[in-house]
C-alpha cells in the first residue's frame, strides 16, 4: 500500500502506473463475473477495500458520518446489487429501501422495462456524434412537452439536477435581461456555484460567499413576502429575473406550502413580469401523487426543472423545459448553452422507458394512495410515541418525519439500519428523516418498514424515561405467543417501589395478568421472568432471576429461580423482565438481540435435549448467547420438568419446563450489549466491595467456596434429617461416596454464576462423566433417597436430568417412591433401591413418556401415590415433592413446607440449624422472619448462600445504586407484601388453610435411625404451629390476610383483596 500522506505535488514520480492498471483490471474482472458468481471472499475483500479507498481516495469524512460504516458491525455496508425495494450488500445483507436514493429510485431499483431499453440502446449507440441529429433526444423533448402542464414545449437535457437549475437560471437571465432571483429559505437546488446561490441554508453557502449577485431569500410558503421583495426590487431598479421554488421542499423535510402559495406565486410573477421556475427535480415524475408537484395546484410554471427519477434510476439525467416564447431567446445562438453528454441516447432511452412505466403503472396514483396510508400510520405512531416523533408531513410518497432532536433522529436512523431498513439521517443531521421509497413499493414491504419503525420507536421512548432510573433498565418485554407480537413497556415504577424486583415484582406482574382460576397449562397462563435491581452489577451474587407463574404440579402460584448469567444478559439487552402470554401453535423460540426481538421457528429443535439446544443457539447467535431451554420433558409437559441454562443450571422446581412446553416455547435466547447504570458508580462500587469483604466473604458463607452444597451431606446426617430410602431413614450410613470429600477428590474446577466471588460450583469428572455438580439436593434425593451411593451413577443421573430437562429433586423423590412401592410389593416398576441400571433408564423413560412406568412416574410423586393408593408413603406438600431435609427431624421445616405457596420448598424458610428443632413457639417466629427476609432476598435476587445479608445492608446497597433512599423498613414491608400477595392469589384460586399440610407419611410413619429415630410430626402439632403462624401474620384462622394487615401494607386496594 502506498503512503499517500506525503505531498506528491512536487514529485512527478509519485505514481505507480502498473499498479493502477492491475487494480483496474482486478475490478473489471469482478464487474464481469456473472451475477451470483463472485465468491464471498472476494466480496469481503471488496468491502474492506472500499472502506480504505473511501478513506484514502474519496473522503474519509464520509466514514465518520455514514451509518453504513458507523453502525455496521464488522464490515461496512458495501453497495452490491438490488431489485425493486430491496438492496443487497456485498455480504448478502438485505435492506429494505426507505431512502429511494433521495428520489432516484421512484420506479424501484433496476426496473426491468427500463433496464431492457437501456441495454438495447447500449448495444445500438450509447453516445451521440455531436453532429448528426439524435432521434431519442428529440422524441423525449416532444413526450415531455406533451406531459408537462401549460405551454411548456422545449427542453434541454443534462446530467444532474444542479445542471438543470443552472440552465434554468441562465435561461431566465437571457430572457428577462435581469439578474436577480428570489429563492426560498431552506430551499435546495444543488451545490454548483450558480444553484448554490439559491440555497436556503447557511452551512453550504456561507463559506463560498460571494455567490451570484442579486439573490434574495424569503420564507417558503409566504407569497406576500415574495411580492414584497419583488415590489422593493422594482422600486430600487435592482430587478428580478425569476422566482425559484420547489413545489414541496424536499431536503427541508418534505415541507408542503399552503394551498394558496403556488397560485399566488403565479399571479405575483405575472404582475411583476418575472419568470416562475419550479424545481421539480425531486417532486417530479409522480413522487408527490401527481405527475408533477405543481399539478396539485394547477399552476403552470415558466420553466420546469427535472432530474433524479427522470433517468429511471438507471442513467443520470436531468432537464429544464420552457415555453416556445421564452425559448426564442436561445435560438439566435444555440451554442450559448450546450453539453457533450447531457441527453445522451442511454439517458433518453431510460427516460422514455421510465415515462412508460410512470403512466402504465400509474405511479402517481400509487404514490397518492400509499402516501395517504403511510401518513395515517405515522400519525398513529406519533400519538403513541409523542416523545419520539414530533411531526409528520409531506405529499404522496415524499414524506418527512421530524424528531425532537438530531440525537433522537439518529437513534431512529441507526435503529432502522440495524433492523435492515435503509434511511437517510446522519450523526449531525437527523432531525428530519425522509420517507421516500419507490412509488411501486409492495404493500407488504411498506408494512414491514412501518413495523420496524414502531420497533425502533419502542426502544427509544421507554429508554428516555429510563435515563433517570438507575439499576433498572426501565422496560419490560411483553411477548404474546398466540399473536406472535412483542412489545416493550416501561417497567411499572409503583410496582418497583413496592415490590423491588425479582420475585416480588414478578408476582405483581403475574397477578395482574392471570386470573386465579386459570389452568396452568392453558394459553391463558403467563410466564413472568424478572431480574433484580442489582443484577448486572458488581453487587455479589445478584445474578439470579425469578420465574413466576402457576405451577402444573401444584396448581398454585409459584416462583422458581436460577443463577448463571441469563439474568444479566437480559438486562444488558435492555429488559428488567419478560412477560410471556398466549401459546404458539407450532414450536418457536424467542430470540432477543438487544432491542431486536424475534419469535423464530423451533421445529428443528423440538425433541432435542437441552445440551444440544444450547449448542445450536451458540452456533446461531454466537458464543455470547445465554438461554433458558427445555428438553423433551418440558415438551411432554411433565409437571416437574425444569428449565435449563448453561447446561447445568436450572429453574428446577414447580414445572416451569412444562409451562414452556404448553406454550410450544423451546427456549428464550438473549444477547445484550448494553449496560446497567447506577447513580454514583464510585460510591456504589465502594459499598459493594465493603459488603463483599465484610459480609459475604466471611466465615458464615465461605463454606460455599471451599465445599459448596455437598457440605450439607454430613451436616444433615448429623442432624438426622437426611432423607434416605424414600424418606424412611434420616441418616445414610453409606454416604461416603457422596459427601464433600468425595466431590473434592473428583473436582477439576470451580464454577460461578455471573458476578459471584463465592464460586460454589464444583466441576467434577469421573471416568469421562463430567458436569457441574451434583449439588446436595441431587446427592441426597437422587442418591441416598434411592440408596444409590455411587457418585458416578448420581452424576450420570444428574446429567441425564439436566439434558432431558427434569428437576433432579422431584425426579429423585419420585423414583425413590417407585422403588419403595416395588420393594413393598404394591406395584412392580422394575426399580429397586440401589439398582443403578433401571434407576438411570427410567429418567429417559419419564422424559419421553416412553414406557408404562415412565408415564406413571411422570405424574410426579403425589399423583403416583394417589394412583397406587400409597398416600402414607409419599413425601410432598401441595403436590411438590419434598426436598432433602426431613421435617420430622425439624418442625420448623415442617411449617415452612406447609405454608409455602408452592408446596414443599426449602428456600422459603430454612430452620435446620435451630437450637431446638422441636421448640414450636420459637420456630414459628423463625419461619415467619425467615420467609419475609428471604422474600426480600429473592426480590433483590441475591443468592441464598449470602446467608449473612440483612435488610439493612440490602437497603444501603439499593439506596446507593438507585440514588434515592430506601430503608430497611421499606424492604421488610416488601417481604411481607410478597407473602400476603401470593396468599391472596392462592386463596382466590381455591386453596385454603386445609391445604397447608404435609403428606400423611410425615405424621403416620416414624423416622428411622439417627438422633430423631421414631419421630413424626403429628397433624395436631402442625395445626398448633399454623394457628400461631396465622395469628402472628395477622391472618384469620382460615389463613386469610386480615383487612388491617393489607391496609398496613398498602394492599387494600388490590382487587384480589376483595375476592376473598
Amino acid at each position, binding site marked *: 500500500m502506498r503512503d499517500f*500522506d506525503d505531498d506528491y505535488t512536487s514529485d512527478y514520480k509519485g505514481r505507480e502506473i502498473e499498479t493502477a492498471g492491475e487494480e483496474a483490471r482486478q475490478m473489471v474482472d469482478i464487474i464481469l463475473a456473472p451475477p451470483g458468481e463472485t465468491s464471498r471472499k472476494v466480496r469481503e475483500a471488496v468491502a*474492506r477495500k472500499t*472502506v*480504505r479507498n473511501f*478513506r484514502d481516495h474519496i473522503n*474519509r469524512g464520509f*466514514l*465518520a458520518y455514514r451509518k453504513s*460504516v*458507523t*453502525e455496521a*458491525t*464488522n464490515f461496512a455496508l458495501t453497495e452490491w446489487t438490488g431489485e425493486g425495494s430491496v438492496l443487497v450488500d456485498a455480504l448478502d445483507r438485505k435492506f429494505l429501501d426507505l431512502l429511494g436514493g433521495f428520489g432516484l429510485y421512484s420506479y424501484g431499483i433496476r426496473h426491468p422495462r427500463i433496464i431492457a431499453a437501456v441495454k438495447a440502446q447500449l448495444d445500438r449507440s450509447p453516445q451521440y456524434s455531436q453532429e448528426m441529429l439524435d432521434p431519442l433526444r428529440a422524441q423525449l423533448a416532444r413526450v415531455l412537452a406533451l406531459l408537462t402542464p401549460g405551454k411548456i414545449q422545449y427542453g434541454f437535457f443534462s446530467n444532474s439536477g444542479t445542471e438543470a437549475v443552472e440552465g434554468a437560471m441562465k435561461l431566465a437571465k437571457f430572457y428577462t435581461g435581469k439578474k436577480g432571483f428570489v429563492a426560498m429559505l431552506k430551499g435546495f437546488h444543488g451545490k454548483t456555484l450558480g444553484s448554490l446561490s439559491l440555497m436556503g441554508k447557511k452551512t453550504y453557502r456561507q463559506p463560498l460567499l460571494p455567490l451570484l449577485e442579486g439573490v434574495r431569500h424569503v420564507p417558503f410558503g409566504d407569497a406576500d413576502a415574495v411580492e414584497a421583495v419583488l415590489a422593493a426590487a422594482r422600486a430600487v431598479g435592482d430587478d428580478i429575473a425569476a422566482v425559484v421554488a420547489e413545489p414541496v421542499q424536499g431536503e427541508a423535510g418534505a415541507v408542503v406550502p399552503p394551498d394558496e402559495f403556488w397560485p399566488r406565486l403565479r399571479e405575483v410573477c405575472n404582475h411583476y413580469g418575472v419568470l416562475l421556475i419550479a424545481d421539480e427535480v425531486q417532486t417530479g415524475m409522480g413522487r408527490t401523487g401527481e405527475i408533477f408537484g405543481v399539478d396539485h395546484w394547477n399552476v403552470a410554471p415558466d420553466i420546469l426543472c427535472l432530474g433524479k427519477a427522470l433517468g429511471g434510476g438507471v442513467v443520470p439525467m436531468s432537464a429544464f423545459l420552457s415555453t416556445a416564447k421564452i425559448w426564442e431567446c436561445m435560438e439566435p445562438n444555440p451554442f450559448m448553452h450546450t453539453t457533450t453528454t447531457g441527453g445522451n441516447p442511454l439517458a433518453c432511452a431510460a427516460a422514455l422507458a421510465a415515462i412508460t412505466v410512470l403512466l402504465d403503472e400509474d405511479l402517481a396514483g400509487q404514490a397518492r394512495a400509499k402516501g395517504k396510508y403511510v401518513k395515517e400510520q405515522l400519525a398513529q405512531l406519533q400519538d403513541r410515541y409523542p416523545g419520539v416523533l414530533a411531526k409528520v408531513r409531506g405529499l404522496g410518497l415524499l414524506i418527512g418525519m421530524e424528531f425532537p432532536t438530531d440525537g433522537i433522529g439518529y437513534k431512529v436512523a441507526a435503529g432502522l439500519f440495524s433492523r435492515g431498513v435503509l434511511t437517510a439521517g446522519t450523526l449531525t443531521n437527523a432531525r428530519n428523516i425522509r420517507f421516500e421509497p419507490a412509488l411501486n413499493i409492495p404493500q407488504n414491504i411498506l408494512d414491514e418498514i412501518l413495523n420496524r419503525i414502531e420497533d425502533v420507536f419502542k426502544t427509544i421512548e421507554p429508554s428516555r424515561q429510563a435515563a433517570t432510573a438507575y439499576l433498572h433498565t426501565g422496560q419490560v418485554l411483553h411477548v404474546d405467543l398466540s399473536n406472535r407480537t412483542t412489545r416493550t413497556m416501561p417497567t411499572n415504577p409503583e410496582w418497583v417501589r413496592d415490590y423491588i424486583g425479582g420475585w416480588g415484582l414478578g408476582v405483581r406482574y403475574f397477578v395482574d395478568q392471570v386470573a386465579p382460576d386459570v389452568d396452568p397449562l392453558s394459553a391463558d397462563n403467563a410466564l413472568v421472568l424478572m431480574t433484580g435491581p442489582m443484577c*448486572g*452489577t*458488581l453487587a455479589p451474587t445478584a445474578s439470579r432471576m425469578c420465574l413466576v407463574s402457576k405451577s402444573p404440579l401444584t396448581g398454585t402460584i409459584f416462583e422458581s429461580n436460577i443463577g*448463571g*448469567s441469563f439474568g*444479566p444478559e437480559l438486562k*444488558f439487552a435492555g429488559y428488567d423482565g419478560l412477560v410471556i402470554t398466549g401459546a404458539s401453535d407450532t414450536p418457536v423460540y424467542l430470540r432477543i438481540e438487544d432491542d431486536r426481538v424475534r419469535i423464530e421457528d423451533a421445529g428443528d429443535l423440538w425433541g432435542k435435549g437441552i*445440551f444440544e439446544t*444450547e*449448542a445450536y443457539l451458540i452456533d446461531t447467535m*454466537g*458464543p*455470547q448467547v445465554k438461554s433458558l431451554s427445555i428438553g423433551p420433558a418440558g415438551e411432554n409437559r411433565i409437571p416437574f420438568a425444569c428449565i435449563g441454562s*448453561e*447446561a*447445568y443450571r436450572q429453574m428446577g422446581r414447580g414445572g416451569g419446563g412444562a409451562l414452556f412446553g404448553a406454550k410450544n416455547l423451546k427456549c428464550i435466547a438473549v444477547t*445484550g*450489549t*448494553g*449496560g*446497567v*447504570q*447506577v447513580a454514583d*458508580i464510585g460510591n456504589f*462500587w465502594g459499598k459493594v466491595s465493603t459488603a463483599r469483604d465484610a459480609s459475604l*466473604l466471611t466465615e458464615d458463607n465461605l463454606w460455599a467456596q471451599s465445599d459448596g452444597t455437598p457440605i450439607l451431606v454430613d451436616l444433615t446426617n448429623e442432624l438426622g434429617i437426611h432423607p434416605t430410602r424414600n424418606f424412611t431413614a434420616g441418616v445414610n450410613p453409606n454416604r461416603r461416596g457422596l459427601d464433600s470429600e468425595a466431590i*473434592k*477428590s*473428583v*473436582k*477439576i*474446577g*470451580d*464454577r*460461578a*454464576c*455471573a*458476578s*459471584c*466471588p463465592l*464460586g460454589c*460450583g464444583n*466441576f467434577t*469428572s469421573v471416568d469421562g462423566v*463430567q*458436569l*457441574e455438580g451434583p449439588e446436595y439436593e441431587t446427592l441426597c434425593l437422587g442418591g441416598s433417597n434411592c440408596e444409590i451411593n455411587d457418585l458416578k451413577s448420581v452424576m450420570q443421573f444428574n446429567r441425564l436430568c439436566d439434558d432431558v430437562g427434569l428437576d433432579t429433586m422431584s425426579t429423585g423423590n419420585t423414583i425413590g417412591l417407585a422403588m419403595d412401592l416395588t420393594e413393598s410389593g404394591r406395584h412392580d416398576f422394575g426399580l429397586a433401591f440401589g439398582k443403578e441400571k433401571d434407576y438411570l433408564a427410567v429418567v429417559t423413560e419419564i422424559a419421553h413418556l416412553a414406557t408404562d412406568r415412565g408415564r406413571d412416574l411422570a405424574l410426579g410423586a403425589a399423583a403416583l401415590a394417589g394412583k397406587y393408593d400409597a398416600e402414607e408413603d409419599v413425601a410432598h406438600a401441595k403436590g411438590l415433592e419434598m426436598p432433602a431435609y426431613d421435617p420430622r427431624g425439624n418442625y420448623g421445616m415442617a411449617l415452612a413446607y406447609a405454608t409455602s405457596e408452592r408446596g414443599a420448598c426449602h428456600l422459603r424458610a430454612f430452620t435446620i440449624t435451630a437450637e431446638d428443632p422441636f421448640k414450636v413457639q420459637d420456630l414459628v417466629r423463625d419461619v415467619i422472619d425467615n420467609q419475609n427476609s428471604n422474600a426480600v432476598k429473592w426480590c433483590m435476587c441475591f443468592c441464598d448462600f449470602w446467608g449473612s445479608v440483612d435488610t439493612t445492608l440490602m437497603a444501603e446497597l439499593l439506596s446507593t445504586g438507585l440514588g434515592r433512599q430506601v430503608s430497611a423498613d421499606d424492604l421488610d414491608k416488601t417481604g411481607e407484601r410478597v407473602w400476603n400477595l401470593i396468599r391472596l392469589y392462592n386463596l382466590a384460586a381455591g386453596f385454603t388453610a386445609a391445604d397447608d399440610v404435609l403428606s400423611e407419611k410425615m405424621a403416620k410413619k416414624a423416622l428411622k435411625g439417627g438422633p430423631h429415630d421414631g419421630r413424626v410430626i403429628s397433624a395436631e402439632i402442625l395445626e398448633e404451629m399454623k394457628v400461631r403462624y396465622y395469628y402472628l401474620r395477622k391472618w384469620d384462622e382460615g389463613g386469610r390476610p386480615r383487612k388491617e394487615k393489607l391496609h398496613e401494607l398498602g394492599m387494600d386496594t388490590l382487587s384480589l383483596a376483595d375476592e376473598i
Partner: protein
Amino acid sequence: MEKHLLAIPNRCTGCNRCTYACSAAKEGMFMPSRARLSVNNFPQEGYSVPNICFQCPRPDCLTACPVEAIVKNERGVVVVESGKCTGCGDCVDACAYGMIEQYTSGIAYKCDLCGGDPACVGECHFGALVFRAPDKISRKLRGEQMKQRMQKGTAAEKRRALAQNILKNAVRIPRTTSYMG
C-alpha cells in the same frame, strides 16, 4: 515492564467480575461488552478463558495504525491516543488476539492496565488474573497463550478461537495447591 498481567484459565470460574469491573472503571457503567478484557465461557465443559491484552513487545495494532494514534508508553503499555484515532479499524484487523475494538464512532479502545493497578485483577477472587513481576512459569504460560495467533474474523471471533484452543490443550486435574495449567 516491571509487572505483567497474566491469565490462568484453569482457575477461572467464569464469573465475569473482571469485565464488570473493567467496564465500570472505563465506561462508568456495568457493560461487559465494552470491557477491555473478556471471558469466554464454555459452560458444558465447565471451563472459562479470560482473554487479555498482552501489551505485545512488537504490537501489531501499533504497526497497523496509519496515523500513529497507538503508542507504547514509558511503562511499556500500548495505549490509544483517541484524539488522533481516525476510526479506520486497521488495528482491529491487525491484532491477532482480538483485544482492540472500536466504539460505534470508530474510535479504538483497548486495555491500558488502568495505569498500573488493573481493576480486573482486584475483582478476581480465584487468582485467574494476576498482575505481578514475570517469572519463569508465568513467562512460559504467557508465551504459550501468545503463540496462538488468529488472523481471521472479528475481535470476538478471534478471542473465541483462542479460548477454544486453550480449552483443547488444557490439562485439568483435581485441584492442588498450585495449579496453573
